[in-house]
């Protein structure tokens, strides 16, 4: 019964050799041996004073969302090296808080510089270009905090850090996107502040 449920959170299978970490201040992706938590020699270049908010991987590549430069960066999954020049997406239009990989695409969501444009945008995984015409979701209405692929859909969670008094007038949307066609189905759940999500299906989510 639980398999058909969706919970907030992060889901992972285990049996790892490495842990990857990203964040603020260090501005690097670092890789650790899971048994000892010692850092490996594989470390990304200094990614230029931009918080690294989210990561996903597919086809041997690691995709990292950034704030200051407001785009997605592609690195080698194993060595954490980047091409020269670095492969980056066109600007998202705001801070990228969430990325997820699904098929041949990388999906990015975040908080837009324009409050009316918090959308999920789709980039080609190979070179992080946008399609022509660009494929993107409808306006989400709030910062998009999490994206997870599951069973042919991409689920998005938004909100968090919103003043409680707005709870009655702003609904945190919890919606579905059909991938890879990316036609919106758009079902919502009224709940404030979805910071994290997970499917109970093993391995479905990299939060």
């Amino acid at each position: 019964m639980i398999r058909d449920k969706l919970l907030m959170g992060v889901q992972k299978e285990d049996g790892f050799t490495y842990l990857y970490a990203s964040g603020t201040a260090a501005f690097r992706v670092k890789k650790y041996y899971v048994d000892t938590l010692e850092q490996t020699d594989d470390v990304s270049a200094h990614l230029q004073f931009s918080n690294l908010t989210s990561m996903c991987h597919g086809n041997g590549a690691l995709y990292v969302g950034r704030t200051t430069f407001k785009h997605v960066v592609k690195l080698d999954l194993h060595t954490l090296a980047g091409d020269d020049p670095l492969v980056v997406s066109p600007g998202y239009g705001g801070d990228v808080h969430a990325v997820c990989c699904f098929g041949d695409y990388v999906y990015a969501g975040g908080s837009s510089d324009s409050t009316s444009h918090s959308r999920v945008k789709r980039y080609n995984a190979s070179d992080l270009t946008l399609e022509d015409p660009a494929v993107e979701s409808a306006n989400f209405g709030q910062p998009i905090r999490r994206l997870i692929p599951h069973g042919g859909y991409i689920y998005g969670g938004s909100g968090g850090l919103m003043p409680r008094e707005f709870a009655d007038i702003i609904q945190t949307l919890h919606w579905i996107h059909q991938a890879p066609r990316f036609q919106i189905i758009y079902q919502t759940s009224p709940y404030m502040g979805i910071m994290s999500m997970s499917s109970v299906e093993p391995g479905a989510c990299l939060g």
Partner: protein
Amino acid sequence: MFRLNLDDLSFDDPIVQSPEYGGTLDAIAIKGNYLYAAGLGTQRIRRYNLSDLSEDDPVVQSPMYGGNIHRLVINGDYIYAGGSHTQRIRRYNLSDLTADDPIVQSDDYGGTIFEMFGL
């Protein structure tokens, strides 16, 4: 923390939800019959029963991480937490959320850890 039906994103009636964590939740990991949650405020990992999101009595929880926890990853018999202030990955025993003595942890990441995954 709450649970939604995957097909239509509806709540169960009554809503299946956990007791209050004590701060904003920012990380969840699931293994077996348990869900592990962490975040801001308590700075601890807490364990919930996956079937109904209830807590055991007494609550099974980790020692304080030393900062806000932004990510959890489970591997084998351990659960790993990353976050702010300590800025390290710390390892806890999955069975009871205790930490080894001395605690197994990474060097300082150099900033707040926002994201982790295993490979």
